[in-house]
């Protein structure tokens, strides 16, 4: 069992070891849906929800699979749960906010292949967190992802007005901005262990 206190797990996942900027998980939506702050924030919300649900499910699955002695099925079980949760979120969003559904576009179903979510399920299993710790970890990871996405979108909104040399335009400039953001997040390194 892991004895790490809850708040330390949360801060660690959200800031110190930010999923996007330190672990490089979920880079595709990070580069793809970070053009507008409003869309970025809602995307963050959707990802956070999927993270919470799949983290709880992953916790249960891990213990069931251990009990019946088939840990090699873990990966397959995790990805199936994540895919179904994403399907659910997609249906909910399509029903309640068609505009948001259009804005997120292809990146909504692609949450399935968002490695941040699968990564979360795998890391929490590796570190043997208990149930409450899992919740804190999932919440921290979700907050961290949303924070990174919104910060990035804010910078890119400004960047569209700036005169950027056209060889750097597009993905290259986004990557440079991400690199600088990642450098600044290293300033949090003193806050937690690991």
């Amino acid at each position: 069992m892991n004895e790490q206190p809850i708040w330390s797990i949360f801060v660690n996942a959200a800031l110190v070891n930010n999923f996007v900027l330190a672990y490089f998980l979920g880079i595709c939506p990070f580069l793809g849906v970070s053009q507008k702050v409003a869309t970025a924030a809602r995307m963050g919300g959707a990802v956070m929800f999927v993270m919470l649900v799949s983290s709880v499910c992953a916790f249960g699955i891990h213990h069931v699979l251990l009990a019946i002695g088939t840990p090699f099925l873990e990966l397959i079980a995790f990805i199936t749960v994540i895919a179904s949760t994403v399907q659910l979120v997609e249906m909910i969003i399509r029903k309640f906010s068609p505009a948001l559904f259009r804005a997120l576009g292809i990146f909504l179903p692609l949450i399935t292949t968002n490695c941040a979510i699968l990564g979360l399920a795998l890391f929490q299993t590796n570190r043997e967190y208990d149930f409450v710790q899992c919740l804190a970890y999932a919440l921290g990871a979700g907050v961290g992802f949303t924070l990174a996405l919104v910060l990035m979108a804010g910078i890119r909104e400004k960047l569209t007005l700036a005169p950027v040399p056209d060889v750097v335009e597009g993905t290259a400039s986004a990557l440079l901005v991400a690199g600088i953001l990642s450098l600044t997040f290293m300033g949090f390194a003193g806050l937690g262990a690991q």
Partner: protein
Amino acid sequence: MTNPETPSSTNEFMKGLWRENPVFVQVLGMCPVLAVSNTAMNALAMGLATAFVLLMSNLLVSLLRDFIPRQVRIASYILIIATFVTLTDYAIEAISLDLHKALGAFISLIVANCLILGRAEAFASKNGVGNAALDALGMGAGFTLALFCLGAVRELLGAGSLFGFAVLPGGFEPWIVMILPSGGFFTLAFWLIAIRIFERRRERRQTAEALQ
């Protein structure tokens, strides 16, 4: 640069290497690209593992393409991919424990690599087994090449070595930032810029030749 004269099989293979390179052109599968490209060795191993999974899942998806109902195709593809990733994970653990530790969770995360699902959906589900295999080999080679390009630059500048052997003279002060996460973003950005400048120059030369 599609040349209609070339036989389509070489074309299927070559497009993954350069014209539709998954990393440099399509910007797919970025997470493992940035995360495990801190040394040339890790990058190469990760590239090969991904290429293997890509090849096997492309083959199987192409074989089963007439049997999988359209509504559940994504779920089926993911299951196929997850099976091969589990295989690869256990194989790497058996071959080299050190490598398995260095790559960590990123082997399992091959499942969530959008490149593999993307190829299954966009190519393997619509083409025959032979072409699907060639496509997977080309994309896999392009992915490995790109990972290696990043890993080599980061290891060279960040540690002054290549494949663990010291290459640069002793007086060289390693750029620690290149091994840190931000170094991954910067290196990839510089590769993209370099490739764009190169493409620009070639286009300009071609238009100049066309004018003459």
